[in-house]
């Protein structure tokens, strides 16, 4: 028993205790001296944000957004794509500010140049990154506007909302996972991916092509390219479709999802997603959720 309390034990307990005490005091003083006074509301707001740091709001992560919101003392002009208006409402409630309604958006791939429709004319070899392939050549299919299929967008997605379809060699966007952070939009060297309104019941109609070449040239490399014929233009009763540089574009603000234009497109370049199957003609890939 006595051995436990011999001189060495006592000495070490005392000396270590003393060192610990001094260190604690130093730490406390330093912490006081270098204390950064921060608005506690920033933490509160950050707490409510999803914490994905995706940068979809245009700022460098959730903390930056929280800081910006608190600094501005209002929610005007801020949005959190992954959290949607729900999160903004929550923040508004917690802080006592008015939060506006924001339309849910989603990434849409505007190219359908799969292996089937735009068969490879050459074989690409090298670093599997679109950024390089884009500098090197027009793409295996030969369309200088089309998807290169190296999957930089999939790589950029932080939410597992995309994957490369091995058969088509095109990326697929998963409706339920995409949070509209725009990472893929920024990454795509050809600006194929567009942010569009998510639409009622996830229904969307869009031109799945961005080829601005003349119809004949575009058709040569891809069977489902928009050839700029303007048929859809005539069909649309709501002035939602514009034709520029041999390319039709559907304005999602004006489109009423009436489904008149897809059947008239001679190259099936207009896609409709998540609609019930048409009665007469079997339509292409209604992605089932």
């Amino acid at each position, binding site marked *: 028993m006595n051995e436990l309390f011999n001189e060495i034990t006592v000495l070490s307990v005392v000396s270590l205790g003393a060192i610990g005490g001094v260190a604690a005091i130093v730490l406390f003083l330093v912490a006081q001296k270098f204390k950064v006074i921060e608005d506690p509301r920033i933490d509160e707001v950050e707490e409510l944000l999803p914490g994905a740091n995706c940068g979809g709001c245009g700022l460098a992560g959730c903390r930056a957004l929280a800081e910006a919101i608190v600094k501005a003392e209002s929610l005007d002009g801020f949005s959190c794509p992954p959290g949607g208006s729900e999160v903004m409402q929550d923040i508004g409630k917690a802080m006592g500010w008015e939060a506006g309604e924001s339309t849910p958006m989603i990434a849409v791939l505007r190219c359908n140049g799969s292996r089937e429709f735009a068969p490879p004319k050459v*074989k690409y070899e*090298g*670093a599997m990154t679109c950024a390089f392939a884009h500098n090197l050549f027009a793409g*295996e299919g030969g369309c200088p506007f089309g998807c290169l299929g190296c999957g930089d967008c999939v790589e950029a997605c932080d939410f597992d909302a995309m994957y490369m379809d091995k058969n088509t060699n095109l990326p697929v966007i998963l409706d339920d996972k995409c949070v509209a952070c725009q990472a893929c939009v920024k990454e795509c060297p050809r600006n194929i991916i567009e942010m569009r309104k998510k639409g009622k019941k996830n229904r969307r109609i869009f031109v799945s092509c961005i080829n601005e070449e003349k119809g004949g040239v575009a058709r040569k490399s891809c069977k489902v390219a928009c050839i700029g014929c303007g048929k859809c233009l005539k069909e649309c009763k709501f002035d939602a479709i514009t034709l520029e540089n041999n390319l039709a574009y559907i304005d999602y603000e004006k489109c009423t999802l009436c489904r008149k234009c897809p059947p008239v497109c001679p190259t099936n370049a207009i896609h409709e997603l998540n609609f019930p199957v048409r009665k007469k003609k079997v339509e292409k890939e209604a992605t089932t959720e």
Partner: protein
Amino acid sequence: MKLLTVSGSPHYHAKESVSSLMYGVIFSLIPAMLVSFYFFGLPAILITLTAVVSCMFFEFIIQKYLIKGPVTIFDGSAIITGVLLAFNVPANLPLGLMVIGSAVAIGMGKMTFGGLGKNPFNPALVGRVFLMISFPVQMTTYPKPTAFTTQLTDVVTGPTPLTALKDGVTQGVPVSEIMTQLPEYGRLLIGNMGGSAGEISAIAIILGGIYMVIKKIISWHIPVTFIGSAAIFAALFWLINPEVYPDPVFQLLTGGLMLGAIYMATDYTTSPMAPWGMIIFGVGCGLLTMIIRFFGAYPEGVAFSILIMNAFVPLINRGFKPKRFGEEVKNG
């Protein structure tokens, strides 16, 4: 006709590949291997085989079932790890221990970090140091070199020159007296002395090293600076007090210095990239080896010194860049 290939330039590629480099190293190890087989006989062959096979086996298991990635056991790197690990242990080490050592070398030293090219420490040395610390008795019971005829069972053991020296010096015996007990330099050069399985023959290892430098498998920077700095450092101490510190020639020929300098320190993955970085690395290894030999508890310091310097490699790579073209403008 098949589709044309499109790729970025260049369209030529050198014949060299990872495995051709690795097999080049293995080829250059043959002389050292033969010497080891000659002096230590069957146990040396068995230990080398065990190490190679178990290294490849563990790499296979990990790549196939743990990582579930491509299996690359035939690229030669696992074979080198196995051979070098075997070279770094006494030839009469129980084979079970060798298997454990291989598992540690490949598993802990290499695959944990992501496999070939990702490991910060030389896998063979990780295995060796693990064995050294865990099984000190078996790892320091060195067989005496004999002809090839020795039976497995009755191996005569004896100290390595370095252990003998360390023991002597700690007991206060002057170096000159210890030296009389030890083999003369000619025998040391050939490798007729106690020691780890593959480290004994300086001449065979140097031969392999020269082959590798000529074939441009390794550059001269690390071996030359390693050996050179060790020699200079040893010479300094020898000049100060020849009664406590043996002469540099003895230091160079004994222990794992040659093997370490030529094969272990020059491991691609764990050595610096730029020429000046390699030189700093080599000098650091040389100095640390001698410091451990002179002042450390262990008689030998090559393994530790290389591992310590391995840890500095990322820092060295950051600090020592190759000479950029157009950096200093010379007009002449």
